[in-house]
């Protein structure tokens, strides 16, 4: 029932009317993951595909909220949202609901009532962490001395990936040698690992919550002549599956890389189609399939397919 109203958007189904979407995302500079994510969305929501898309990027929650308010005033049909912060969104979403704007979350969940959005397509960060930690457990090391490099504190990715490690470590008595945030930053990671080496800490695992930080850590190891990778002194773990990271994996310099799927657009399109046809969605939250790669089993095909 989309009749009346000041700006009539009925008749979209005929195909000559574009569906307007406002897409709020994090800054594509943030990481390789984000770049891939942004490119994927941009390739999908084009005029040719029947969408009139506006994009807004920010790493700051309040700016994102601002953009959201703006799109609500512009009365877009769909508001696609990858929130910088999990909290602080409910009143905006209520405004959206009042204004008749449908909200679809992608990539990141937020802390708000389910009724406020139509669907949420996310990675299960907890599961990513659990998969990785499970893999680590299966390495059956005689001792676990871990350097844990955390992402920006409080982000969903950090929470999920840290949570799994912290839980298991306390359960299995693993020794966390260093636990510090490098804020997704390779160079900070390098400094933190360097500092651990300088003060003669013993460690045999580097659990970095993204590829950049793993790269920084490896740079520090290389300097100090500490061997790393398959069958070497230190196990290196990363996340995101950047192509270059998978290549490192393939070369045996790293041991594990956890996938975090940036390609949500096909899922989103699916949902929009269903909503446009008036169908109801079977479930609100769609969790994407993700896996982890082991250096010893990864193939060139994997690198091509999953590398971002």
């Amino acid at each position, binding site marked *: 029932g989309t009749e009346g109203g000041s700006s009539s958007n009925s008749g979209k189904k005929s195909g000559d009317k574009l569906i307007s979407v406002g897409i709020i995302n994090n800054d594509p*500079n943030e*990481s390789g993951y984000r770049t891939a994510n*942004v490119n994927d969305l941009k390739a999908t929501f084009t005029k040719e595909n029947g969408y009139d898309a506006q994009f807004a990027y920010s790493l700051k929650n309040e700016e994102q909220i601002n953009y959201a308010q703006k799109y609500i005033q512009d009365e877009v049909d769909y508001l696609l949202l990858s929130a910088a912060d999990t909290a602080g969104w409910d009143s905006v979403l209520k405004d959206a609901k009042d204004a008749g704007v449908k909200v679809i979350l992608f990539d990141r969940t937020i802390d708000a009532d389910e009724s406020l959005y139509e669907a949420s397509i996310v990675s299960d960060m907890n599961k990513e962490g659990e998969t990785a930690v499970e893999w680590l457990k299966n390495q059956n090391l005689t001792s676990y001395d871990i350097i844990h490099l955390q992402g920006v504190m409080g982000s969903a990715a950090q929470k999920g990936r840290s949570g799994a490690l912290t839980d298991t470590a306390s359960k299995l008595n693993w020794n966390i040698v260093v636990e510090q*945030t490098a*804020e997704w930053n390779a160079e900070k990671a390098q400094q933190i690992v360097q*500092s651990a080496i*300088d003060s003669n800490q013993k460690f045999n695992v580097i659990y970095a919550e993204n590829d950049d930080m793993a790269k920084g850590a490896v740079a520090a190891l290389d300097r100090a002549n500490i061997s790393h990778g398959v069958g070497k002194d230190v196990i290196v773990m990363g996340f995101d599956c950047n192509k270059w990271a998978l290549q490192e994996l393939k070369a045996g310099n790293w041991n594990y890389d956890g996938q975090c799927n940036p390609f949500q657009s096909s899922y989103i399109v699916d949902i929009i189609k269903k909503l446009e046809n008036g169908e109801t969605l079977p479930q609100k939250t769609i969790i994407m399939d993700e896996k982890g790669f082991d250096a010893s089993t990864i193939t060139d095909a994997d690198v091509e397919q999953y590398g971002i």
Partner: protein
Amino acid sequence: MSQNTKNNTASSIITAMFRKQIFIPLAALLILALFNFIMDPSFFKITLGHNSNGDPLLSGNIISIIDYGSELAILAVGMTLVTAASRGQDISVGAAIAISGSVVLRVLCGTNSRPDELQAPIIVAFIISCFVAMACGAFNGVLVSVFKIQPMVATLILFTAGRSIAAWINNNELPVVTDSTFSVFGGYIPGIPIPTPFFIALACFVVIFLVLKFTTLGLYVQSVGINEETSRLNGLNPALIKFITYVILGLCVAVAGLIKVSRISSINYSVVAKDIEMDAILAVALGGNALGGGKFNISASILGAYVIQFLTTTLYKFQVQSDALPAYKAVVVILLVVLSAPIVREKIAALFRKLRPARAEQNG
């Protein structure tokens, strides 16, 4: 009697020392060193090892400090000049590093973001990045000197745009250089056990000291920073001099940018050199330079930069709870500046003066 005069000279030396500008960062450095020495003397241990290619290298906290402090120290040099001449600070250096680093990688990688071999000699890439960084500096310089916009806002423009421009230069791809010669600038020269950034920084210091010695830059910059009108009437061109300091800072940015991208042979536009502008300004201030411009002391700023790195390394070493790290940093910084504040120093000096005669009496 002679005891007394000796005491007097001693206390006057102490008083004089307290007044010297360089005392501030020096004292800060000493306090930090002392703290570490008491907590764990092994902090200062330096060991000779070999890297994975079998080249010798030194490692230890002190080495890390002179290594990672380099970019900051280089920036502090330019920032000091900018501060002195234009009575304000450039907050766009972090963004400008992103730009110049991005340019280096763009030139090295060409259109392919992951080339197997370098598409251009490193020196060419560096020179081009120098020009770009100097252009950034020139942009800021023009806004400040010609349009007379206050430095902090003028540079806010590049601060806002810089990281976007950096992304644009590389088409938002994240180039990675695999060639190992490139990593020399942020790592080690094969065969030399001391990290290259330190040498680069040293070279920068030498250059700037030579410039200050063999040109009148220092005098001009201070004079313009203290009294623009007088400087003009004495034949200087204040706008030009301010402009030049920004261009010099641009050069510093290019060098720091090269080290930054070389460290990990890659770049992340949004986090590379993040918040380094604040640290650079802090270095200038810790060096006892007035942020309101005028007289400056470059060595003090450089020391200030290493104080900041010393502090960071110390905090890492003691594994301060990671997210609370800034809070500790704040407390230490405040303690350092309070202890070295002129008023407090005067009080301490006065205390010394009081103590000396008292002891002399006891002795006599």
